[in-house]
């Protein structure tokens, strides 16, 4: 066993849509080690969304193996997958996906609620996570009282709060202007610097360039997998 936190072997995912069968992933093998910063790229239809869903345990592969943090997770039940998502994965979405009526603090607490943590500990952990992303003074604000960059940082705090094995970001800067995008990318770089494993799905080369390693998918297969020069800038 290596220190691969994600180990994928021969992963395939087929969808049956009416009479057609769509081959979204056709045998992908990939290993991501602890504290790597990986960008997954590819044009639309390359299978990167499916890849993201499988990596995030939102979807299960049709065949192949997926080991996450030493556990085989490709054949788990719905509830077991929910548990894995809760403990091992921190999602950051393009559209932030914050609950509009809840404060920043409550939003960040959410994964801990499903982890069954007591209120007081939850509050402390969520507050600490918000501090980590520089929003200590915005805890009681609702999403609509925050800027886009701040909202995404609340989402990042929420992703981090349960100390996941991987931070999984899906086009995290897709809804942000370029200045704010840079700010978010700096946050990712800092987290990576602190030892966090980051996997980011994007179609923007500028954004992918922030990662230390870029995996390009095409037609459901890995087209290229290389380290970049600007690693951990």
């Amino acid at each position: 066993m290596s220190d691969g936190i994600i180990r994928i072997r021969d992963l395939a995912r087929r969808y049956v849509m009416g009479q057609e069968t769509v081959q979204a992933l056709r045998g992908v093998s990939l290993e991501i080690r602890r504290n790597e910063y990986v960008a997954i790229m590819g044009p639309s239809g390359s299978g990167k969304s499916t890849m993201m869903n499988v990596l995030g345990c939102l979807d299960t592969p049709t065949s192949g193996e997926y080991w996450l943090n030493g556990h085989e997770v490709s054949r788990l039940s719905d509830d077991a997958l929910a548990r894995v998502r809760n403990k091992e994965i921190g999602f950051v979405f393009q559209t932030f996906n914050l609950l509009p009526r809840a404060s920043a603090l409550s939003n960040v607490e959410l994964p801990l609620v499903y982890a069954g943590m007591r209120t007081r500990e939850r509050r402390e952990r969520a507050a600490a996570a918000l501090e980590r992303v520089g929003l200590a003074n915005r805890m009681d604000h609702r999403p609509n009282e925050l800027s886009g960059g701040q909202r995404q940082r609340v989402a990042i705090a929420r992703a981090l709060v349960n100390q996941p094995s991987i931070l999984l970001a899906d086009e995290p800067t897709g809804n942000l202007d370029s200045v704010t995008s840079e700010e978010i990318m700096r946050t990712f770089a800092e987290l990576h610097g602190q030892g966090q494993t980051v996997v980011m799905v994007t179609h923007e080369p500028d954004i992918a360039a922030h990662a230390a390693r870029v995996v390009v998918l095409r037609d459901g297969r890995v087209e290229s997998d290389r380290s970049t020069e600007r690693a951990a800038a």
Partner: protein
Amino acid sequence: MPLSEALRLALDAIWSSKLRSFFTLLGIIVSVAFLVVVVALIQGMNAYVRENLTGAVIGINAFQVRRTPISVGLLSDDEVRAIAKRPLISADDAAAVAAALPGARAVALQSGWPTPVSDVSYRDRLVGDVPIFGVTPPYQIVQDYRFAAGDGLADPDVRERRYVTVLGYEVASKLFDDPGAAVGKHVRIAGREVTVKGVVAAKGRVLGQSFDGFALVPFSTFESMYGRRKTTVVSVKMADAAEVAPAMDRAEEAMRVAHRLRPGEPDDFTVDKADALVAFWRDLTRVLFTAIPAVVCIGIVVGGIVIMNIMLMSVNERTREIGLRKSLGARRSDIRRQFLIESVVLAFLGGVIGVAGGWAFAGLMSVVTPLPARITAWSVGVALALGAGTGIVFGVYPASRAARLDPITALRAE
């Protein structure tokens, strides 16, 4: 997710769309309020009938020997036919009963149902539709009448068929500004001149019905004015409640002897006490009590379907939120519980509002109308349980729909 968290979420969701929640609950609110109000009114009437009406109509510690039972309304045709063959109650019967009950405070004969009504006039004043009762003097004891002026009817009035009357307080005060001035005056009842002997002190109103709007005439005078009634009643008043039951048994024996009934032959008369009136009322309300659940059930089912629809709508609107929660680690059971609790809290709230509304309405009714109302704990309990139960039954489907949502599709929803 802990229960407290789910409750907080549910209240938050309901509160965030107050108006919609309220309209969603209208069906439940109305049904529950209806239940509470109707039960309160029936219970209030029950208590009222027991406490006031029976005392006023039959007399306290009193019973009656009648040709027809009090609860005549609920008899079968056969029973009605059998009763039609019964002999009339006569003055001899009253005498027989009186002889059998030396301890009775009073044994009276009174004209029965239907009581005739007549205009009573004095000079240019007239009181319309006054019930005229033909009675023997002990009737005034049975009814515990006290006299505001003058005297009651006496035996010679009956014996000599005198045209005299005792007026209820209301009649007297309408005809004469001072009811005391009525005594000795000549009033006209059914076209005949009748002398006022006395005025009965006010008894007040029961169920909005005045018990002071009547005129008593001697039993014999009554018969010459209106003919013989087929429903003449013997009223007996005992000194206290414990004597009533044994006295009724003795009256029954005396009546059987007087009517020359053989052993085994059924009574051709009825001995009823105030309880019979209460029982009659109960029979009536039992009919109501069987109708209420049907009406309430229809309301609740309609209300429940509305809740189900609104919950489905809410699941639809919050698809993305459900996807997000699932991606953050919510299991199916967490989502199911969240939505189920929301619908239960919603429906329970409807129950609470309905009970409060019904309570207020019943209270208002008893203030502005003569109808009494009595809120009972069980109707409130049933109402609240119905509310919560509706939430569970009609919340299951939307909740399981939410729980089964695929997180990927849900996250992508608009």
